[in-house]
């Protein structure tokens, strides 16, 4: 649909250089709002230096009205202009906020990705394809993508500026973010919510590939190492992406791709916070005391995960 507007193969991209239609519309809003606000703001910016110069004390020729304190017409303009601008902007907010609601399903057919924020990396689970990746999000071009977010530590915020704005992810809860992938290429995503020592390193790469490329990548991961509970518990130890790879004994430029051996993983991560039992610091990923051995995921949830309702 809108995709064709965007440049072919963007490798970087940010909010100002979007590579997908959602971020593109978000940028268009920025520009629109600036221009419209200028109606109210421009006159003030221009008038300030002019008035200061014209009515400087040394300019005896300028008029002087020491007792003037009001004018009906001026008053109407002064309230009227901001009211008009704000009214227009309010209508715009009303429309745009609904139009770009990150929870709004964008298509019947979508790639669903469950996202678990860890300290300080992102785990992407593809329940339908049965694969999992760390700090790598692979999406097929032009397709609608539905991210379901949570964390297994403190609150984080997932953002892929060239594709869509951010959404908080919170432990024991889910939030949602829909977007359309752009054309093939790579762009950057990150956690925007401060989370401590390794925060600045929590970045990931979004790879937009062709449909065929997507299928091929998913298929190739079927023979990757399994992501089971034990591996997950190890991944959840706090560390930057580099530190994590070192801890797992793999090369720092290798990618971390898995076959999703535990299909219930996402639900079990959510369930960790709904067992009705206290969570010791050794069992809390992200804490300095955390030990993978001490952190069993609940076998089955005894409570439904608290959904972040969309009302």
């Amino acid at each position, binding site marked *: 649909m809108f995709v064709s507007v965007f440049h072919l193969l963007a490798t970087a991209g940010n909010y100002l250089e979007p590579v997908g239609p959602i971020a593109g519309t978000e940028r268009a809003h920025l520009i629109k709002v*600036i221009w419209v606000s200028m109606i109210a703001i421009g006159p003030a910016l221009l008038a300030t230096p002019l008035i*200061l110069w014209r009515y400087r004390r040394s300019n005896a020729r300028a008029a002087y009205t020491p007792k003037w304190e009001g004018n009906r017409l001026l008053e109407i303009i002064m*309230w009227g202009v901001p009211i008009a601008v*704000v009214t227009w902007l309010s209508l715009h907010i009303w429309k745009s906020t609904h139009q770009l609601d990150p929870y709004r399903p964008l298509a019947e057919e979508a790639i669903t990705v469950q996202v678990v924020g860890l300290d300080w990396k992102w785990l992407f689970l593809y329940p339908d394809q049965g694969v999992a990746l760390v700090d790598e999000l692979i999406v097929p071009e032009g397709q609608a993508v539905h991210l379901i977010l949570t964390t297994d530590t*403190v609150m984080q915020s997932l*953002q892929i500026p060239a594709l869509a704005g951010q959404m908080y992810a919170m432990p024991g809860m889910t*939030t949602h973010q829909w977007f359309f992938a752009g054309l093939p290429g790579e762009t*950057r995503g990150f956690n925007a919510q401060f989370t401590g*020592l390794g925060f600045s390193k929590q970045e990931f790469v979004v790879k937009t590939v062709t449909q065929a490329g997507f299928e091929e990548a998913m298929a190739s991961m079927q023979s990757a190492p399994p992501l089971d509970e034990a591996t997950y518990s190890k991944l959840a130890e706090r560390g930057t992406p580099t530190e994590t790879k070192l801890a797992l004994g793999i090369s720092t430029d290798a990618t971390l791709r898995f076959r999703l051996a535990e299909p219930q993983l996402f639900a079990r991560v959510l369930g960790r916070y709904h067992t009705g039992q206290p969570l010791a610091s050794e069992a809390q990923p992200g804490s*300095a005391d955390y030990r993978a051995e001490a952190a069993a995921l609940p076998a089955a949830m005894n409570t439904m995960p608290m959904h972040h309702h969309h009302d």
Partner: protein
Amino acid sequence: MTDSLCGNLTWDSIMLVKAWKDPNVNNLITAGAAAMIPVGALMVPLLLLWTGWWRPLFRDWLASVDHKKIGVLYIALAVVMLFRGVVEGTLMRLHHATALHGGVLSPDHFNQLFTTHGTTMIFFVAMPLITGLMNVVIPLQLGARDVAYPRLNQIGFWLTASGGFLITISLLIGQFATGGWSAYPAYTGSIFSPGVGVDYWLLSVGLSGIGSTLSGVNFAVTLYKLRAPGMTFMRMPLFLWTSLCVSILLVLIMPPLTVACITLGLDRYLGFHFYTNDLGGNLMNFINLFWMFGHPEVYILALPAYGVMSEVASTFSAKRLYGYPSIVVATMCIAVLSFLVWLHHFFTMGQSALVNAVFGIATLIIAIPTGMKVYDWLATLWRGRIRFTTPMIYLCGFLVLFVIGGLTGIILANPTIDFQVHNSLFLVAHFHNVIIPGVVFGMLAGLHYWFPKVFGFRLLESWGRTTAWLWIVGFSVTFFPLYVAGLMGMRRRAVDYADPAIQPYMIVAAIGSLILCLAFLALLGTILRSILLRKQLAVPLGDPWDARTLEWATPCPPPEYNFAVLPEVTARDAFWEAKENGTAYAPVEKYEDIHLPPPTYYGLWIGAFASVLGFAVVWHIGWLSLLGLLGSIAVPIAYALLPYREIILPAAEVQKQDEAWRCAARETDGVTRDEEAHATNRGLAKPDELEIEFAAAER
């Protein structure tokens, strides 16, 4: 294990020891700053003993309940803390200039820096500045002798100071939090942030918050009850209107912050589960509570600055304020609306589009009264006789820069845009853009404007103007590049970045922060230089700026009781009107005895015990906590039992002082505004040719 004598405190908690054992750059920087505390704690008392200044310090200042002196103490506290805040801000900016893939500072150090910087700047710079200025000005402008509850006022100050003490001592003993000034859990819970940092945050913010609540009550009652005869609400100077709104806001919004602190404290100390990840805790409740305080807080800071700017615009353009009723309405609108927008701080927490749209629109609506005010100030300047004094330069800077901050505020109010720039340097640029040109410029303009009222001499104009320009230029160079960096995807609170395209912006910002350091030094220089030249700068007759409101109808400095006889107010610009009618310095028929509250160490004791309590709680030292708590309770009881003897100043004495001033004013010729910045300005204004001409033409 917690030691029963020292709690969790060990030798290694002391920064200097830590730096001795592990002398890396980060530890050395912190230790260098920390070393200033023991050095200061030694030098200052020695200096006071040696010069003998300790006597007047205690007698005339620390024991005083005079609102003007308490106001000055607040402002002094703010300036000391501003030093720390500016240094920390600059350190972060310099660090970022080098922080492509790394940089000088360690993440832990950087994280503490933005947390202490933000907390210090909001709670111990901006808040004391506005409370201090309101303290100085409210009773004087109101035609009152003091605030409604002078002792409560003193207690409020010392509670704020004890909060300041805790955040300062955290530099030397232990460390501060790393969770930002907003301290979101679960990051700040005991699982993710063990150690004393967050406890320091909780106690320093909590104690100063209680102090602010007390100030709010005090000012509100003062404004309702102590207006001079004839001072109806619609005759109150604009600064008083903004103060009234601020007082109401303080009373209503500090409690949510206190509750947030207490509940997070319960989680941390007693294992509660308000905000933990497990057992039904929910961090979203904290975030809501915090911003129910946090958003109105920005108006608590901004409104008094608007008040100052209104006074400055009218005084230095020798003209009535344009659109007074509109500005009053706009001020009240802002105060009310400020309660209804807190959610814009987390459009990205997953609520529905409906909720986001409603809060986005509510936020925009605040732009209406705010824009209105800007137009009103411009209309006040229009057809005035503008004098480019220091406060006026701050006003110019404010008008241009604050409007730009307003624009970025409108941008951020759009949820769809906020999704992209939330948590980025764009946001950091925005709030500095409203806080520095708005709040800081307003306060500095106020400082320059009212300084002679409190101390009896003007601040040097030449230095003052240079300082103002340095702030304006420094601000622009530091913060405009951050907007761009934010749009390019640089996150706030990130210790480093990976995109080389961002580095040039960081380098420019670093240069800007050095200009801001110069601005701070120039501010100190202005004050010191003016103290040296105070004889030439003295304006004892009381009205150096040919001003319009009641505080100028007293000598500079005013006597402790402010007004020998309470003024009768018949118009909005009460003093201006009196000057026009020639009654400003007319002899008074009858004087009466004046009752003054006695000096007391009540506040100092409360502050001392509160500091002990705070420190002991941070370090889990049981017996000391108990001591601090019992002390804090015992002091009010003790003072309630002690006899309270007002000081009575006999009418004859009041008459002598007051007549001396009135006679001097009547016998002096005064100066026109051309000589405003000259040594000939002794604080008596004479209308100049132009104004007389216009007055004649009008008749």
